[in-house]
């Protein structure tokens, strides 16, 4: 494991009486790619904003890695805070000055160009997002925080966005921390998955380990009651049980057929399991 680039140390954030983050700790390594998933209102975006310095937590702190310059933390969202009346050229000039960027031109996004004379307010949501990404690339980011923007892009722009992030990871060893509901939107980029619920991190696993540890049993096959069922869906015609953490030796002798499932379904099972627990309380 390489050096941490950002560490969240027992972060608590309250909005009035609601606790959005409840003592969250997590360490992010230089150059790694992480996806944060979870139910609506789980605290994902709040965590990301704390990491980016946009929210100061009520308790706890965010510790930057040694020598990390704040200007090298980029936060991509589709709510670009620039004057709507500016042209792209003016916005770039402002951004350059703001961050002391030496580069003369805005870094290009392969396969995507915008007329520099257009105004911010005339950009579509997707164009804004990619424009914002190119501004941030000029900061040569050590960390890219990406808040739920990928799913709002059309398939063409999504490819351009992901390719650009991949290029930064390769060239600049940028760490990518992205919030997303649908993991397949993030292709195969994240190596690590965090799942949040109720302001806490309920799961933090390497992608491959997670895939090995969650299995599905379809149908009514009996299996020992000691097996940990994470979540169950049942209707008249179909019953699925999700097992976590799964152990290989259960394949023999338990009488049930365990099938591998993809990440989207795994995340669904964790979120579903968390909803069931909440209802039971």
């Amino acid at each position, binding site marked *: 494991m390489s050096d941490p680039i950002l560490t969240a140390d027992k972060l608590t954030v309250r909005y009035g009486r609601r606790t959005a983050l409840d003592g969250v700790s997590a360490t992010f390594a230089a*150059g790694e*790619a992480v996806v944060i998933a979870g139910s609506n209102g789980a605290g994902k975006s709040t965590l990301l904003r704390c990491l980016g310095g946009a929210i100061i937590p009520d308790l706890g702190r965010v510790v930057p890695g040694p020598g990390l310059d704040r200007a090298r933390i980029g936060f991509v969202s589709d709510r670009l805070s620039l004057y709507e009346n500016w042209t792209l050229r003016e916005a770039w000039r402002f951004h350059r000055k703001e961050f002391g960027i030496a580069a003369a031109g805005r870094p290009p996004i392969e396969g995507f160009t915008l007329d520099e004379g257009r105004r911010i307010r005339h950009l579509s949501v997707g164009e804004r997002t990619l424009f914002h990404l190119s501004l941030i690339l000029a900061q040569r980011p050590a960390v890219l925080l990406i808040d739920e923007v990928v799913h709002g892009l059309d398939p063409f722009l999504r*490819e351009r966005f*992901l*390719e650009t992030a*991949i*290029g930064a*990871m*390769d*060239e600049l060893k940028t760490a990518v921390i992205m919030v997303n509901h649908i993991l*397949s939107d993030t*292709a*195969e*980029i*994240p*190596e690590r998955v965090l799942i949040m619920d109720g302001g806490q991190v309920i799961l933090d696993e390497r*992608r*491959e380990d997670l*895939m090995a540890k969650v299995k599905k049993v379809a149908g009514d096959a009996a299996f020992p009651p000691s097996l940990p069922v994470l979540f169950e869906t049942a209707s008249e015609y179909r019953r699925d049980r999700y097992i976590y953490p799964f152990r290989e030796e259960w394949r023999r002798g338990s009488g049930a057929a365990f099938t*591998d*499932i*993809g990440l*989207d379904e795994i995340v669904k099972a964790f979120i579903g399991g968390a909803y069931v627990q909440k209802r039971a309380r």
Partner: protein
Amino acid sequence: MLRLNVDPASPVPAYQQVIQAVSIEIISGRLKEGDRLPPIRELAKILKLNPNTVAKAYYALEENGLIESRPGSGNWVKPRPPDLDSLRRSMLEAETKAYLEQALSLGASLEDVRSSIERIARHE
């Protein structure tokens, strides 16, 4: 052009899918001795993979003796992979096993399966 694909919905880890796909290209002869593999960054972009994933797959392919990495000039298909036949056989066996399980689960007999394969092979 390489016929490489990675299925993000598949439960098979992406780096294993890359290893398998590149192995198939080499075993089939579509990638030949002295051919250069796409640079890590390019393959990562094409397949929307983490560059580390591609690097890990290339490293495993090197361990398997299929490719070699030349510092500064990328990854190249090695002259005559040592165990081409046994590799081909083991991959064929894995494919056959998966197919056979599916076919037998339909209630077909081994004889049905054999004659079905022969019939289809004749027509193609």
